[in-house]
């Protein structure tokens, strides 16, 4: 116990003086996620708000062939730019970026329209550009609405009820709660939290193992009259401490960032306050020893700082796998999934974000599973440290 504490205190202090550890544990790790995330969400929100507020701008060529359509578009608030373009010119204009979406009304339009035949309109847009695609979608929607208005008028003039052309009336009922909708946007947040958590201990895990070997202090340490398990235990404990600090900072940063992100403007509310942050901390806490022992174990096999860095970067990706899996199969919080570390934390946090109730039992199972894996990894680590090959 004494050894554990002495090693813990020394590693904690030593790394507190190491700029690299501090930068990654207390700055890069915890802040990278929230800041990137805040910027990303703000930008997404701005775009979606902009789309419904800003009038649709279209370039139309040959509007004289379709006065009715032109009138309709103007009445719907579409800002039209009139021009005379050939098909090739229209294509070039869209490709060159001069106009984003071009409507081209061919001469045949008026004749076919008058004859109640399908009248052609060409819509030029670049579907590879997400901005243009959205404008084209809106244009398509308005053109579709114009088409069905004309169809109904035609039926009415022929004495047929326009309702005949509407055999099914679909009414969509969106049951997503405002928070639920936000979760789609916030889905990545849980990964950033787990990332920050691991980042916090990354350099300490390397420094206390591969670093110790590289700078040549390991053999002297191993020839002391102390239990190797206590030695590596103290190192893991110090790694845990840095991870907790990083986790705490990361959650604090998220709380702050969401103060400034205008989620409510698109009818979403993010359930992220101090209270949620505390719950997140409790949910993630059992994952801390797991991450710390995993990183220490992997780093114990490496000889140099650089080698350890290479391997541990892949370890940072480990928690993404279950999360990626969860989003591909859209997994929901289920008791049976609570046995899988990182996935269980992700699901529980997502539930909290959605304002769904979570079972205390699930939280406990998630914690027990993570701690169980951590214990197993610790046994493996301690066994490795007792080996002669540890000397390198």
């Amino acid at each position, binding site marked *: 116990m004494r050894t554990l504490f002495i090693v813990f205190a*020394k590693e904690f202090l*030593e*790394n507190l*003086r190491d700029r690299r550890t501090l930068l990654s544990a207390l700055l890069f790790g915890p802040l990278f996620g929230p800041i990137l995330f805040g910027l990303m969400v703000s930008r997404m929100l701005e775009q979606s708000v902009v789309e419904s507020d800003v009038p649709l701008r279209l370039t139309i060529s040959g509007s004289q062939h379709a006065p009715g359509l032109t009138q309709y578009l103007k009445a719907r608030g579409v800002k039209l730019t009139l021009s005379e373009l050939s098909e090739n010119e229209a294509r070039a204009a869209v490709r060159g970026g001069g106009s984003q979406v071009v409507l081209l009304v061919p001469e045949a339009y008026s004749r076919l329209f008058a004859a109640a035949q399908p009248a052609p309109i060409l819509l030029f847009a670049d579907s590879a550009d997400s901005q243009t695609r959205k404008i084209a979608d809106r244009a398509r929607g308005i053109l579709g609405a114009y088409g069905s208005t004309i169809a109904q008028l035609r039926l009415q003039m022929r004495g047929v009820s326009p309702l005949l052309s509407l055999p099914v009336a679909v009414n969509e009922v969106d049951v997503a709660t405002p928070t639920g909708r936000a979760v789609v946007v916030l889905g990545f947040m849980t990964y950033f939290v787990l990332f920050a958590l691991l980042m916090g201990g990354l350099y300490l895990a390397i420094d206390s193992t591969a670093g110790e070997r590289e700078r040549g202090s390991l*053999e*002297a340490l191993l020839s002391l*009259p*102390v239990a190797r398990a206590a030695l590596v235990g103290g190192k893991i404990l110090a790694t845990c401490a840095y991870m907790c600090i990083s986790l705490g900072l990361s959650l604090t940063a998220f709380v702050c960032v969401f103060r400034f992100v205008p989620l409510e403007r698109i009818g979403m509310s993010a359930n992220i306050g101090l209270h949620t942050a505390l719950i997140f901390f409790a949910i993630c806490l059992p994952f801390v020893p797991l991450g710390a022992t995993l990183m220490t174990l992997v780093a114990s096999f490496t000889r140099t700082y650089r080698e350890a860095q290479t391997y541990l970067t892949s370890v940072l990706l480990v928690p993404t796998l279950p999360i990626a899996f969860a989003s591909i199969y859209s997994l929901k919080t289920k008791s049976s999934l609570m046995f899988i570390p990182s996935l269980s934390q992700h699901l529980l946090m997502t539930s909290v974000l959605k304002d769904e109730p979570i079972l205390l039992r699930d939280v406990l199972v998630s914690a027990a599973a993570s701690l169980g894996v951590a214990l197993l990894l610790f046994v493996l680590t301690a066994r490795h440290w007792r080996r002669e090959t540890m000397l390198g």
Partner: protein
Amino acid sequence: MIEAMALSKRFGSIEAAKDVSFVARDGEITGLLGANGAGKSTCLRMLYGVLTPDGGKACIDGIDIRGETSKARAHLGVLPHAAGLYNNLTARENIHYFGSLHGMTAQRLRSRTAELSLALGMEAFIERRAKGFSQGQRIKVALARALVHDPGNVVLDEPTNGLDVMAIRNLREMLLALKDQGRCVLFSSHVMQEVAALCDRVVIIGRGRVLADATVREIRERSGAATLEEAFLQVLGDTEGVS
């Protein structure tokens, strides 16, 4: 007193040590002389218990290092081949870390560090962080770290490697001081002159075996050679390179 009793160790097909037996006595400096790769480090590592011998036994003051590792190590100070310091800790913190792991109290640590600081001439940099220390300063701190718990036996693996002339001279004085205090000093080297100048007894190792175990004078007399160098070469055989 450090005793090696028929120590053997294999790494795969390589026999790093074979039936190595010798005794390093208190109040004497014993040199383990051999070429690079002769098995010196392997022997020392078995003596301080980080390698388990395939056969044989090692005792520190009569305590079996494998049987009662912690108890035996309390009697032993170790300066391994790689004696790196923690660069973000001060010299004092480096020494205290090892001392507290030896179970020393804070008070005892303070007085012992003061003693060592004076004896090794570390006052000027004892509160400075180890980053940027010269080789000479590093070896002093590493030696202080090995001696902090006041062990009766000291093992040093190639302590002069990488040191400049001044630092080697300092180290030599420190080892002689340890001897005068009645401690058992065992160190390995591949430099013949160094061993000859410093040691009371020499154990010559080649290909994992003890080739000679005697005083410097005995070796010379037994071989009948005029100079020390010739005597060593005769013992080693012409295949072993010793500088």
